């Protein structure tokens, strides 16, 4: 097993290096002149030049890159000029918010899309099949920010079921003591069920928005792989030996069908991370996505680089865990690796 992890990480190293280089170039190509931006409205040209020197932007690109990589090695992601905080603290405070939102979205999406896919496959060609397909496709057909705004308008503004879209927690609850950074888990650890319920209520709408947006890929993949497995020989053997339909569908067909679905989770996760950036803007969620957008628009390099690198590491870790999960479900992979 360790060897498998080692091998998997080895393949991830080049892509991480690729990410570091591309982010560095991307941020350097951004048109905005950070020095001018931070010199303030009334700055004179020489004040700007002076700021550019302090930021070290005047030195040649390769030198800047070497300094950047050296900083990275020391875990110093540099300081965000917009918020003045060191980027590493910004990321550590904001990452749990985004992670909690994306994971909640993913879980809700899985809990809805997988049964939809299974149902569509088991009753292929029937009305249920078409209905599942239409519902899943409709979800992905709207831009995520629009779905978000519609949900806020309906559930908060008109019906009042959902709480105000004011971020992770209502202003009258103090966040639970920091353990994992996930409010839901921390509040459970602290046995503060009122905060748990408040945090869950705040999380409901944004997570639902993300889930609706990612229904289609998961449902379509589940349906396709379920159809393939149901047509396979061993399902026919199971039927021929008189196993109950639920055993055939769940124990035999479903577990095999989940294999390809698990592999696409990596794709869906990075798909959600992209969409999450917009959802954070709509729901004023103090996540890492909206932080990166502001930094990108303000041409503030450090947070953008920090954000992208964290996402890359997160993506590699997620792929690793998916491979391990795959190994658990499918013995063939475990033996051969």
């Amino acid at each position, binding site marked *: 097993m360790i060897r498998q992890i080692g091998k998997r990480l080895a393949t991830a190293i080049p892509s991480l290096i690729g990410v570091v280089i591309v982010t560095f170039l991307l941020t350097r190509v951004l048109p905005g002149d950070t020095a001018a931006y931070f010199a303030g409205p009334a700055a004179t040209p020489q004040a700007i030049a002076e700021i550019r020197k302090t930021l070290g932007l005047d030195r040649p690109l390769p030198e800047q890159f070497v300094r950047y990589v050296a900083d990275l090695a020391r875990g110093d992601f540099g300081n965000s000029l917009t918020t003045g905080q060191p980027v590493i603290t910004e990321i550590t405070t904001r990452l749990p918010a985004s992670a909690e939102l994306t994971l909640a979205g993913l879980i809700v999406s899985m809990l809805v899309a997988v049964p939809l896919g299974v149902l569509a496959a088991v009753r292929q060609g029937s009305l249920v099949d078409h209905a599942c397909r239409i519902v899943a496709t409709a979800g992905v057909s709207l831009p995520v920010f629009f779905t978000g705004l519609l949900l806020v308008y309906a559930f908060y503004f008109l019906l009042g079921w959902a709480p105000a879209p*004011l971020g992770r927690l209502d202003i009258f609850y103090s966040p639970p003591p920091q353990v994992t950074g996930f409010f839901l888990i921390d509040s459970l650890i602290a046995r503060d069920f009122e905060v748990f319920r408040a945090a869950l209520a705040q999380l409901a709408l944004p997570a639902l928005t993300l889930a609706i947006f990612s229904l289609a890929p998961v449902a379509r993949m589940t349906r396709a792989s379920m159809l393939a497995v149901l047509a396979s020989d061993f399902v026919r053997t199971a039927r021929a030996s008189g196993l109950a339909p639920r055993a055939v569908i769940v124990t035999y067909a479903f577990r095999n069908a989940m294999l390809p679905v698990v592999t696409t989770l990596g794709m869906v996760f990075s798909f959600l991370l992209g969409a999450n950036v917009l959802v954070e803007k709509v729901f004023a969620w103090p996540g890492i996505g909206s932080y990166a957008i502001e930094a990108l628009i303000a041409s503030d390099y450090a947070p953008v680089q920090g954000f992208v690198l964290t996402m890359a590491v997160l993506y590699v870790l997620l792929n690793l865990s998916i491979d391990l999960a795959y190994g658990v479900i499918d013995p063939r992979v475990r033996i051969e690796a």
Partner: protein
Amino acid sequence: MKRREFLQSMTALAAAPMLSAPMVWSPARAQSRAETLLFVTEAGPNNFDIHGVGTNRPGYEVSWNCYDRLMSHGVKTLADGTASYDRDKFVPELAEEWSPGDMSITFKLRRNATFHDGTPITAKDVKWSFDRAVTVGGFPTFQMKAGSLEKPEQFVAVDDHTFRVDFLRKDRLTLPDLAVIVPAVYHSELVKKNATDKDPWGLDYTKTNIAGGGAYKVTRWQAGSEVVYERNEDWKSGALPKIRRIVWRIVPSAGNRRALIERGDADISFDLPNKDFAELKAAGKTSVVSTPVGNGILYLGMNCKNPPFNEVKVRQAVAYAIPYQKIMDAVMFGLANPLYGGEANRASSLAWPQPHGYATDLAKAKALLAEAGHQDGFDTTISFDLGSAVISEPLCVLVQESLAQIGIRATISKVPGANWRSELLKKELPMIVNFFSGWLDYPEYFFFWAYHGQNAVFNTMSYQDGAMDALIDGARKAAAEGDAGTYATDVKGFIDKAFAEVPRVPLFQPYLNVALQKNISGYRYWFHRQLDYRSLGKA
């Protein structure tokens, strides 16, 4: 969970998070709700220190409420009954009293005033703070220079509780400049303790920490999402504010901000788009205060350095081609003072801003264009700051459409925040839509920044004209010496010249719109266009 039930349970589980029970207030929560004020805006502070590098306008608000100044402005009620700061009346804050001399002014400090950590405030702190303001460079130093406060030698700490400012020259703006945000009083010992040789003035420390003695303290800050203040219980520089705890939440989506104020979850919604204000005002569920922005103008600037806008006739043609009324209706929703369509294209009074004589007249515009030799028109671009897109974008679309009718083919370019400042510095953009307001509400102060040949960054059109400079400098000198006669002729002179040569076409004096719940009282409009918490009350 038996595998058999696996399938049904999945669909049940999916429904759980959606039915979030509506919140029930526990008694403890309800009581603290009454003492807490929640307000929402589009953007948050990036720095708590007014002297900081690149501090944005929300940052000014934190400094204004958490630091003290020697003196502040009194209150006056405007025609529509709303309260505003009084430009001409000064009230004591840290200084109990002051006596202006011929070339100096001496302040008597409160004896019992302390910083947040309890150390008493002395003249030494004031001296250090003023020295910091004039040497740290960038915007604060410029602002001090505008009131002829330029050298540390001018500031003398006579004794622990007396502080004297010596004038370099007589300047009417000196006194008001002492009441703006920049000359705040810092806890010099605390800042020096956290300063480093690379950062002698401790700018890094004060960026995220309050080293002052103002009415409020910051207890929690998450950049880009939330700031929480607590009242400074032993604040002596004025009446103790009524509200104990203030929560400032950043909600980027205007739609959500509107929903929050309408459903009563937010006490104040600051700076909502005009349309929402117009409708909230009509609905009457919340109280809405709209105050014209003192000394502030939304204008269309043209680059006077490069052709074709270096020719006056071309600029005048543009002035006649702008669809003013269409913009007032569809973009400003009536929430602005029109600065166009005056009887004559000349100054009618000393007040600024005031309307110019141009109005929408496409025929005259076409004729002027032909006279300038551009009968078949030309191509150009209109640029604006992405941050102000809510107003600037529709405005540019209307201007583009009407300019097209006289042959000027303009493309619209949205410039993101960071690039906008660097573009303004380069002064290359042919045509821009922008907004500028001076803190000190005097015409010569506005013209000194926007029209003077020194070509400051605010002179976005890089308009340089010797005669204009003479008039502006003359007016400033006359104001300083109190010579009302020359002052009036010079002010009228430079206003007429600005209208005639129209390097920038003033469009509107926009309003600062604030929506408050009915039970919120004590809102006052301030020159810095930010919220002053100290006067607020919650029934």
